[in-house]
């Protein structure tokens, strides 16, 4: 189980999170929605300990991350797989080396064994015959899928997705959504995704939570969110420029 309690985070005086609370049950698929720059990525990075809160606690399976030293934190991180917004593949490594990076570091497997696992994971995300290519040779959608293969390579219990469909065409975005659902069903993982793509959110979420002004202002099932009376959430899910959310340069 993942629990974030009263998370505050600021960067050089700019307050991004102002008391965010979040709870994700084992096996649940939670999607956090929110506008660009609302702090969704910051929230996600707190879950895996890439950022430390100024105040508040992050608890993963009853372990408070703030009480862990580096080794303890790394042990917890082995439970996670994370797909980054830009896939964050290592430029200097081949596709299979990217997928097998965690295995090489944390297991005693030989290079051929790692490659075999990498090829299998790549096949799971629908990629065949690209294991010896370099990331720079791949399209955006393929990079995301390689990123997903890398995220599942260590057979994690929790998968984190940072804007999984951003920058992809609608068909590729839907293919990624399908993969996320497949991962959940096949691997029985807990997943947390952040996105501003509502179509994706409705498709992959058990629960949707909205982050606004540094706090979670509403959460519920996709149906509940679709029928919410919260004006901020309504404006966001309907994609209206006018409403309580004021964008820079655009009036109410």
């Amino acid at each position, binding site marked *: 189980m993942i629990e974030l309690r009263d998370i505050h985070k600021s960067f050089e005086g700019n307050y991004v999170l102002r008391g965010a609370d979040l709870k994700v049950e084992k096996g649940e698929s939670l999607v956090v929605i929110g506008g660009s720059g609302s702090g969704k990525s910051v929230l996600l990075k707190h879950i895996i300990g890439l950022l430390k809160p100024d105040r508040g606690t992050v608890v993963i399976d009853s372990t408070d991350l703030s009480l862990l030293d580096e080794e303890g934190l790394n042990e917890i*991180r082995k439970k996670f797989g994370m797909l980054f917004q830009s896939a*964050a593949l290592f*430029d200097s490594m081949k596709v299979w080396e990217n997928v097998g*990076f965690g295995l090489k*570091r944390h297991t005693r497997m030989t290079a051929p064994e790692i490659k075999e696992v990498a090829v299998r994971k790549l096949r799971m995300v629908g990629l065949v015959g690209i294991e010896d290519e370099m990331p720079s040779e791949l399209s955006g959608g393929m990079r995301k899928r390689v990123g997903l293969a890398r995220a599942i390579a260590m057979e994690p219990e929790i998968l*984190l997705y940072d804007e999984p469909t951003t920058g992809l065409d609608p068909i590729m975005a839907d293919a990624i959504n399908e993969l996320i659902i497949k991962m959940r069903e096949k691997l029985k993982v807990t997943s947390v995704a952040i996105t501003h793509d509502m179509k994706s959110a409705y498709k992959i979420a058990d629960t949707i939570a909205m982050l606004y002004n540094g706090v979670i202002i509403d959460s519920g099932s996709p149906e509940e969110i679709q029928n919410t009376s919260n004006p901020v959430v309504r404006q966001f899910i309907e994609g209206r420029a006018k409403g309580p959310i004021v964008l820079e340069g655009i009036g109410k």
Partner: protein
Amino acid sequence: MIVKLIEFIGAVTEKPVQGLGRIILLLFSTLKVMVRPPFEIGNIVRQMLEIGVNSLPVVLITAVFTGMVLALQSYTGFKRFGAEGLVGTVVALSMTRELGPVLSALIVTGRAGAAIAAELGTMRVTEQIDAMEAMAVNPVKYLIVPRFLSGMIMLPALTVVTDIVGIVGGYLVSVMLLGANAKPYMRATWDFLEVQDIYNGLIKACFFGAAFTLISCYKGFYTRGGAEGVGRATTGAVVFSSMTILISDYFLSTWLFK
């Protein structure tokens, strides 16, 4: 007035002091994880090739021409008071004590230091360093330790090459071009050269290697702000490393060549 002055001093010094503190912290983290297995042998060898072997052509060219111009200028100057016989000594001492370590450090900083900052900076802004951490891999150990060690090992090695090639360059100009007698020139080269000169030059090179890799790694590792940030980190790495090399050179020389 006094309050404003203190405020001004504070504003001017805050960032450099903060930067220095973070570099020292990064140095401690590097030293701490350096001694812990697993040792990144493959990574270290790759970085030694990148920092050392790939810098060899540019270092060789710099060294030979520096030796040549040093001999040329010394000869012209020394001739005015009849001391042409000391050109070999001047070239040998200048190369081993000063120019060998400093020039090779500056050249390698311009080449490898910039590359380190750009590579790590790009990795930072494209979240590759975050991805590494998310996979429970310590990025300081994986990325910084191999570069730091390679700098410390390869810069003294390059300095040995620079010393030799510089002295050969000086010899060629003096003997072949300016007509100096080969035997006395060689004697002047070796007679006043002590092992300590070479040894202390190598200590300086080792320090410079550690300094430029640490600074370049620091600049790259803490890059912010996309492509522009990577550019700033790269420039900052070269400027800051070069200044550190030149300033520390004075103090190291004062300490080593008493």
